[in-house]
């Protein structure tokens, strides 16, 4: 005997058969009644917030009360950061670097130097960070960003000999692989900046600049590695490679310090971390505070000596040197503080407005008139 329950499911007859009559009775007993569970009947316990003036009032006040102090804190912190910026591009005829900027090109071999004097109005107490800033330099150009070979920079021998095609057309030069390949490396910033303190007595004291510790630790120790192992001879490791066309020196001669040479040269690493925006600064040197009693940079006159190598006229760029102390929130930027204060105040005001509204309309929001 065949018991069956046919059901039409996507136009298809399906048969569920069972051999014995007893089974048939069992089948027919199974009701199709849906289970009466909270889930299936959509009656799960739920929190149903209703956004009305009365219920959200506290939220606005709380936001206001939290944001305003944060904003004030940020603003004060930002204001305490001392920052000095000087443009040494040399666009102006009066500028000391005008000459250099005019005759400079990537191919020029003779270094051009110029020196600019400036005055710091207040002493810089803590460690001072020295940045170079570029404007109008689109390090975020899509093809530019891609134009690198990370595995080459990670010390991969194979990539060293055969750079990725992303590096094109800066992958090979006269049939030798370029190390480091790509447009980013090729366009590396190569001005040299030196800072001198002009003591009131007229002597120029060079300010010691630390060139290490300016890159991310992970970049220096994980992402960037020299080919040929830790202590190998860099010159040998880079044997058979060409230097990037715009570079004056090969990569293994970037620095005398073996820990800051080759791919793990920190200036190089910093440059390779492509900036997000066309106007950017990059950490160049750190001026360590040597003496707890004296400020790092006392008030007075300074001279910036620039070895002017980097042409920016092709993109109407500007070059700057920035000296800045630093806080937990990074460099000087009053925006966040102001924004917090503004938003906090707006929320507070809205809270007040809502309070009024709540008093005016609050009583009738109890479902009294569903009259539409």
């Amino acid at each position, binding site marked *: 005997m065949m018991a069956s329950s046919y059901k*039409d499911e996507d136009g298809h007859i399906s048969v569920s058969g069972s051999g014995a009559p007893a089974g048939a009775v069992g089948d027919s*007993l199974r009701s199709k009644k*849906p289970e009466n569970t909270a889930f299936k*009947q*959509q009656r799960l316990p739920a929190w149903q917030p209703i956004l009305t*003036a009365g219920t959200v009032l506290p939220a606005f006040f709380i936001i206001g009360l939290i944001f305003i102090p944060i904003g004030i804190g940020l603003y004060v912190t930002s204001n305490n950061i001392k920052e000095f910026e000087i443009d040494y591009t040399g666009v102006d005829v009066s500028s000391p670097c005008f000459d250099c900027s005019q005759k400079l090109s990537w191919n020029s071999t003779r270094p051009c130097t110029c020196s600019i004097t400036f005055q710091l109005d207040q002493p810089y107490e803590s460690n001072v960070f020295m940045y170079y800033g570029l404007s109008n330099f689109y390090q975020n*150009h899509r093809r530019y960003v891609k134009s690198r070979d990370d595995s080459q920079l990670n010390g991969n021998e194979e990539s060293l000999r055969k750079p990725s095609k992303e590096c094109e057309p800066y992958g090979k030069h006269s049939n030798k692989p370029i190390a480091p390949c790509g447009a980013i490396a090729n366009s590396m910033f190569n001005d040299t900046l030196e800072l001198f303190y002009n003591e009131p007595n007229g002597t120029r004291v060079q300010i010691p600049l630390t060139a290490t510790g300016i890159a991310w630790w992970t970049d220096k120790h994980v992402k960037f590695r020299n080919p040929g192992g830790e202590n190998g001879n860099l010159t040998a490791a880079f044997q058979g490679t060409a230097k990037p066309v715009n570079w004056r020196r090969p990569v293994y001669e970037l620095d005398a310090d073996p820990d800051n040479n080759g791919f793990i040269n920190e200036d190089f690493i910093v440059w390779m971390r492509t900036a997000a925006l066309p106007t950017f*600064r990059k950490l160049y040197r750190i001026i360590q505070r040597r003496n707890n009693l004296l400020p790092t940079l006392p008030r007075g006159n300074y001279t910036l000596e620039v070895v002017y190598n980097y042409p920016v006229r092709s993109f109407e760029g500007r070059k700057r040197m920035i000296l800045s102390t630093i806080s937990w929130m990074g460099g000087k930027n009053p925006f966040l503080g102001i924004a917090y204060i503004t938003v906090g105040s707006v929320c507070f005001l809205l809270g007040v407005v809502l309070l009024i509204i709540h008093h005016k309309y609050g009583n009738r929001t109890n479902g009294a008139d569903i009259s539409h």
Partner: protein
Amino acid sequence: MTWKSPLALVREALEGQRARESELRKLVSNLPYEGLEKGKQPNRFFPSNAVKTTKYSPLLFLPKNLYEQFHRLANLYFVGLAILNFIPVVNAFQPEVGLIPICVIMCLTALKDAWEDFRRYQSDKKINNMPCFIYSRREKQYVEKRWKDVRVGDFVKVVCNEIVPADLLLLYSSDPNGVCHIETANLDGETNLKQRTAVSGVCTSNPGFEPESFNCAVVCERPNNNLNHFKCLVEKPDKDRVGASIESLLLRGCTVRNTNHAVGFVVYAGHETKSMLNNNGSRSKRSKLERKLNVDVFFCLILLFTMCLIGALGHYLWLESLPGVPPFLVPDSNGHLDEPSLASFYMFFTMIILLQILIPISLYVSIELVKVGQIFFITNDIDLYDEETDSRVQCRALNITEDLGQIEYVFSDKTGTLTENKMVFRRCSIMGTEYPHKENAIRLAVLDEPETEEEVIFNQHQQLPRTRWSLEAEGISPSDTHWQGSRRKSKVAANGQSDAAFSSPLETEVIPDQKLLQQITRAESGGGHRDSSRDKDPHLDFFLALAICNTVVVSMANAHRQRACTSPHSSQTNNPLEAFSSLLKRAGSFIQRKSKRNHTILEVPVTDAAKTDSREDRNGVQTCSLHPLSQSGGPTLEPEDLCYEAESPDEAALVYAARAYGFILLARTPDSVTVRLPSGEELVFEVLDTLTFDSNRKRMSVLVRHPVTKEYVLYTKGADYSIMELLGTPYAEHISGVEKNIAADTQHHLDCYAKEGLRTLCITKKVVSESTYRSWSGERKRAKAAMECREEQIMETAVQLETNLTLLGATGIEDRLQENVPESIMALREAGMHVWVLTGDKPETAVNIGYACRLLEEEDLVINMSCKNKLTCTSILDCTLEEVRRYGEDPSNVDTTPNISLVIDGNTLTMAMSPDLQERFVDLAKRCRSVLCCRVTPLQKSGVVKLVREKLKVMTLAVGDGANDVNMIQAADVGIGISGQEGMQAVMASDFAISRFKHLTKLLLVHGHWCYTRLANMVIYFFYKNVAYVNLLFWYQFFCGFTATAMIDYWLMIFFNLFFTSTPPILFGIFDKDVSAEVLLGVPELYRTGQGKGEYNFLTFWISILDAFYQSLVCFFIPYLAYRDSDVDIFTFGTPLNTVALFTILLHLAIEIKSWTLVHWIIMLGSVALYFVVTLAYSAVCVTCNPPSNPYWIFQSQMADPMFYLICTLSTVVALLPRYTFYVLKNSVAPSPLLQGRQLDRMDPSTRDQWIKEWRGFRGGGPVKRYELSDPPTPTLETPADFFPDSDADFMGDDLSLNVITQNRQRVVAT
């Protein structure tokens, strides 16, 4: 396998093609060829019975599925983009990465398809391997084989309760009359038994059937999908031809019932069977929301192109502005730089790739997922479950759930949709005399009152002989009647409701009218035995006609029970109480039998045929019965045990009515009808022919030979207007002149019945002379054997005979309203839907039902349109329209305007729908709250729906239960089928199938609303989400020289869309609940939010797009300003942007979510956690893996930076502040109805109900009032009090309805 020449193969293939395509097929038995190779088989060209419904095969799955998927335009678009990414000059990312989203999406779809196909494959396998018996010549007997082994030309034996494996031409049945009962529930859901007859004259060697002796050829038509039609000829060796029709065809999928076994010849097998040809898969419709969505996708496309153009132009200008060749411009590998114009041209395409997710790729998949979830919840709603039929709501169209929330026009069928379609005989008129059946009315009134009686009464009653009324009819005391009524009620209480509608004594039993009973007893006893006048008495004729003139199948009550039915009530044996009661029942019947023997003399000898028939019937019962109790049935047939199963419920009602007067239909075979008369004698009428019902003639007739008078009598019953014009004047000799009066009186009664809302039928008789019959039957036979135009010819012969009829009388059958229909209609009207009822009934009946179901209200302005010619129709239409317009514009009527209702009849409707008038008609209909169309044909029904749908551009819903509603259901945006008494055709054509009309309320008001708001909000959110996210990239273009740089790692970007932010909106689309079901049902007005433009419209779309722009601006520029002129690198800059975007997008959703369940919390927090975990892991692991972005340790270093948190907090707050504030202000100052509904929700249930009540009480229309207030106008006959049972009119408190009444009164005074 032997080698065959290719030529032979081609010839063979062509031959097969020809054989399959030809109009007529000639099939012969396979038996002589058994064991021969395939090439010699005569029926080799026809497919075998193995079915394959799978779409794919394992080998071809990939190409086929891909082909299917590429039919989707969206998929093609994304593949196109992925390919674009492979072109070096324009690519934005690594080419392979661009393929990921589309691959993920397509893989998911393919997996889903594969799973579905696998399930189909499994069920195919199961079906193909079901056992069946095929005759084998070698074994000389039927051997058990599998379904897939059945071939055309085989002989298959089917036994009781077995499913028919293929379309079989019935040659032999164990029943001596060659009848085989089948149940077609699997095909069309009809649970009543149907008779099939063996092809006559083929099987002569009774008992048993020798397949080997079958040497006829079967000529049949090409397979088609018409389940009710089949043409076939059996050509005997002597060239004699016998026609066979659907009456002899056992369809695949049917179940054999009440027949021991039957043998059939396989005519169609496998995919050629009618049931397989009818399987055309589930329907797929495009919902309104999806159509709108596609428009918005198009807008997004425009937006995308605009943004890309801006990008390209910007890039051009940027390049032009460069004075030289800067070091950051990377030439191509040849060292060559593109011209700015060419570069910007390429940039356009690169931008498209970068910004592609502006077109929400995952939206379509998400919508599908959400709908699956929504359907899950709809089908699992316990409120939409019907205990009686054990059926849930069925969602047959899977993608229009949200349309349920936007319905503006509801078109409803009447019979079976608003009413039960359980017919109860109420009154009759015989020979111009009206018999009001007051006692019956009282009984029904009693039934309606809630009353609980004990089972004991039910059992006691079993001892009462049923035939008492006919024998000692005079003394039925009212208390007795009441007592019986309560007995029936108690049976309902005890038994739930019976699974078989017409066998339930509650609905079907009639208490005879005393006057009529007397009349009959007088006629019976009047002229002594077998007096000619007795047989001529019209009263007796009337009831004989009721008993005979039908196609009711008689079955045993317990035989009916043993169906392997899914209803829990069918399992009688499991209930000791019921077993006990059935024991008592048998005891009772035993007593009854004894007492009957005492005074019943069987005067008319029962023919042998009838006797064997009854015995066979019982045998059938015994063999098939599932429970042992039924086997001990008594030796004679007891009317108690009889069940009448009819295709149309009014037929059964009439048979039950006849039974109440003692005219008991005992058995029906194709050739005879056995009727027991009140006197106890059993008459066997030879049935010469049955002229079946069709919608053109609107009547059916049975031609019988009277066993006593040997006259040929034609009994015809049909709709009054189709009968009245066919009346002749036979009784002229003795009642001349009165005849006309009878017709007039009957017509008057018919009109009165109609006004009461009863369904009317006229019963007529005609005595046919022998010669007329002879000539006619010849023609008839020819018509039946005709291969062409068979239907037309058969109908013609029917019309020929149905002339000069004598009117016997008329019946009024009540079709009671389903429970809660008035409330449901009220709710639909309050919800802003225009309700139209389209019925084939007469206007009077329809108007009455209209009042009863609250479609029309007393205070409504009812416009009645009925006109004969187009000219009047035009003028009436113009006048009415003018008046209605004036009425609406009159400022004094603003508050008091009653709803305008329109009643229109079929003829007028045809004229009104003619092209020149339809504008005006639609304009009028638009202003009417409800419209009632009477006397409409199925075609008109769909015409009306189409007209309204197209002219008014509104969402329409059609609900119906019968085959006549199929057109309408298909024409409407949403078709709802009610699985009722009239089979499953409506359900098959529908998008949703429900079992009661009242379920429509919850389906629309609750599920419709939910589905719509959920999906609408989800879709808006999806657009918002993508625009907001993509714009972050777009704003960045202004700072990277429009070079299509992405500051977010591409993997994280993909994950962002695919994983981090995809589940919450889907969840939102499935689970969100703005207002609870109780409030939605209590305040139907809330439904209006979804109507018309709804929540997803032009404005909401663009507001959300604008909001997306604002939010992306905030999310971009706050970090930008914070990081400006710092040493931040691209991807460090992108990290807070991505995080801010995540928080903004998720919290935006959090503002939108109306109810937070545990699931919401888990998914929301889970998404955030997933983002952090994945991003952290990715940044920790990936040192050089994803070249341009170098995500290594970026996220970690950011998370160690307090600035990151400060920026994220600030941006998120600022981004969401406007939306949040806007909501707060709007909710406080001008709360929407939905919000008020939500506030109602927060109250405790009792207060809430109080509010709802009060609110409803204040409403002008006075939606709650008792039906008694609006008595239907002009009942000329005495109207019974319970005219239309208002079973739950008091679902609101009495005090409240009083309140409303007074309000109404006041209003009337005011106007």
